[in-house]
């Protein structure tokens, strides 16, 4: 039994190739049905996100398995293999396991440490279990990968600190204002990044938005989207008295707000802090405002500098994350190797023998007046009971299932009901636990 993985991602394939290969949930369902019909593959999971399309599968012969998955891609997407083979990566055995763990832990993501991928993996797994294409091997692989990803998120700082401009702005606002619940936002101009920042601020319960724009109609439309108040450009100065966070993104050639404009309102504001986020190029906010007490100005370069440093931090944390991944790959391999007939029977026998010995010792300690003959008889008796009880289950295991998938199922089940994983390896966790 081997695990193979074939797929493509943002590193190996340009976006036009990736979009050809993407499976939406309906296609994924059909794809999984198709995968379950391939005789070379005993189990399969299909992972499809905007940055990757991958099939992880359990199979008897890795080379045949890989060929079958390549063929599957070519058939379902009606594209000759040679058109996209150079975009595919192929992993076998431990490498495949490691890859799945790395993807779930967001170590393989375009934005290192982004949190969505884990949810997408869970969704892929849910579809696979619905289509009944997973068995003991991939079930455990997926549960293990969720566990690994959670550990990585908890024990490393890979998800800490913003790595997008709009989110960095929110983080800064929180460092200045703490809670944003009573803080008002003033958006001057428009633009994707600025609007995203406003959205993030509102998600952090900012109290409200004023929207100013050169064309009032545009201000009205934007204000409606944010449930805010549209104002005219001339009213901006007046609103500096009530707003706390100013996001500016206009096409104006000069400064929209100058130091003297802000100085005028300081007294009316009772020196409450003002945070200016200047996303415009050329800049809208006079950088000299940063020199005023309790006023903070960040322009686009400052924010970029912040996220560059945060990305560096994440990369440092990724090294620790890789170690957690490797540790779990080894644990998984140990489990997989045990998932064979002989090791299962051996550990079953060991466990029962241990129970027998312990119970014998306990009983003999209490019974008095028993000679060597009697002790031997009890020893033989207990041994033969165990042998009789074990006979049928062992015969059943040796006969195996009819198909490889069933055999693994039976072995996994046997290990579970006799609790063989826990008794050998203290920190093993049953596959149902996430």
């Amino acid at each position, binding site marked *: 039994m081997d695990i193979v993985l074939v797929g493509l991602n943002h590193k190996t394939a340009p976006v036009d190739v990736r979009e050809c290969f993407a499976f939406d949930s309906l296609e994924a369902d059909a794809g999984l049905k198709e995968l379950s019909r391939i005789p070379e593959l005993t189990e399969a999971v299909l992972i499809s996100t905007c940055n990757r399309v991958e099939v992880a599968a359990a199979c008897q012969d890795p080379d045949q398995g890989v060929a079958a998955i390549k063929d599957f891609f070519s058939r379902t997407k009606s594209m000759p293999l040679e058109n996209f083979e150079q975009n595919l990566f192929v992993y076998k055995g431990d490498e495949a396991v490691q890859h799945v763990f790395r993807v779930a832990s967001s170590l393989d993501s375009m934005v290192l440490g982004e949190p969505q991928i884990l949810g997408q993996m869970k969704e892929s797994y849910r579809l696979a279990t619905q289509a009944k294409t997973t068995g003991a091997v991939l079930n455990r692989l997926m549960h293990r990968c969720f566990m690994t990803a959670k550990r990585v998120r908890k024990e490393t700082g890979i998800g800490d*600190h913003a790595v997008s401009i709009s989110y960095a702005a929110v983080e*800064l606002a*929180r*460092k*200045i*204002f*703490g*809670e944003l619940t009573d803080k008002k936002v003033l958006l001057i101009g428009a633009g994707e990044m600025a609007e995203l920042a406003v959205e993030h601020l509102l998600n952090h319960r900012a109290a409200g938005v004023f929207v100013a724009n050169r064309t009032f109609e545009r201000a009205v439309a934007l204000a409606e989207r944010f449930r805010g108040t549209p104002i005219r450009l001339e009213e901006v100065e007046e609103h500096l008295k009530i707003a706390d966070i100013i996001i500016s993104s206009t096409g104006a050639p000069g400064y929209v707000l100058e130091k003297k404009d802000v100085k005028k309102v300081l*007294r009316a*504001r*009772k*020196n*409450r*802090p003002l945070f200016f986020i200047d996303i415009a190029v050329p800049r809208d906010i006079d950088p000299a405002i*940063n020199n005023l*007490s*309790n006023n*903070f100005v*960040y322009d686009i370069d*400052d924010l970029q*500098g*912040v996220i560059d*440093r945060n990305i560096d931090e994440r990369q440092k944390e990724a090294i620790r994350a890789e170690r957690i991944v490797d540790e779990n790959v080894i644990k998984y391999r140990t489990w997989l190797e045990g998932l064979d007939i002989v090791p299962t029977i051996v550990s079953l026998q060991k466990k029962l023998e241990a129970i027998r010995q312990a119970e014998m010792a306990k009983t003999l300690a209490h019974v008095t007046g028993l000679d060597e003959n009697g002790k031997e008889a009890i020893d033989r008796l207990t041994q033969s009971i165990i042998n009789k009880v074990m006979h049928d289950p062992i015969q059943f295991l040796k006969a195996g299932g009819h198909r490889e998938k069933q055999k693994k199922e039976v072995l996994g089940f046997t290990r579970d009901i006799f609790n063989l994983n826990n008794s050998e390896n203290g920190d093993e966790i049953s596959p149902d636990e996430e």
Partner: protein
Amino acid sequence: MLFVLALSAYVTGFFGYLGYLIFHQEIYHKVGHYFFVLGLGIQTFVLLSSFMVSGVMPVENLRETLCFTAWAIALIYVGFNLRFRLMVLGAFVAPLVCGIMIASSLFSGSSAVSPDLLKGVWTFVHITAIFLGDGAFILAACVGIIYLMQERAIKKKQHGFIYHRLPSLEVLDKMGYACVAFGFPMLTFGMIAGFIYAQSVWGKWWSWDPKELWSVVTWLFYAALLHERLTVGWRGKRAAVMAIIGLAVVLITFGVNFFLLGHHTQFTKF
């Protein structure tokens, strides 16, 4: 013996806080804080039991006075942190408390004061209120220092070690204000109790003692600070700077008897 125990608990607490500051793992703070509170508990027990036995306020000489100061700072810190939960603050306050405790042990414990002077309800109120008030002012200055560090990091756009570990400016500003707002009425109350006590002992409210004079200066300073905050809005950086200057005034008031004699001199004798 109990003094050593309390001091070691404070020092252990300090290392816990320091560990939290460096490694950013909550467990360090938790353990550190347990020890710090334990130290405070032991010291409270020591002060309370000696007071119960003798009825004398434990400020008979510089050694006791410093100990009492350390206790007041620790108490105010633990109390205020129940509400503000500034986890990094411990790393700044604990060394101060430990330092004062260690300094106190350098001075002899012989007493020059007639114990009767330190008995009675008005002395109790006078001394307790003033020391708690001063403790709050010292805490305000600590918070002010942290505020300035964080403000600088944000202004200069250097988001390093300090920036990620320190709390938001707003929380720091609010806590600094809360400290001053608590310390000021305490000081007022303590001074009134002192006047009443002076009247009952020496027959006059006011005797141009240098400590009395500087206490009034301190009072005026913090009165101005609070007034300006409420009317014009002295907040943020300026409030933080003023809280630190305020600490200097408090220290002068505390140490004025090292240079100038007066009827408070005995308590800082060594």
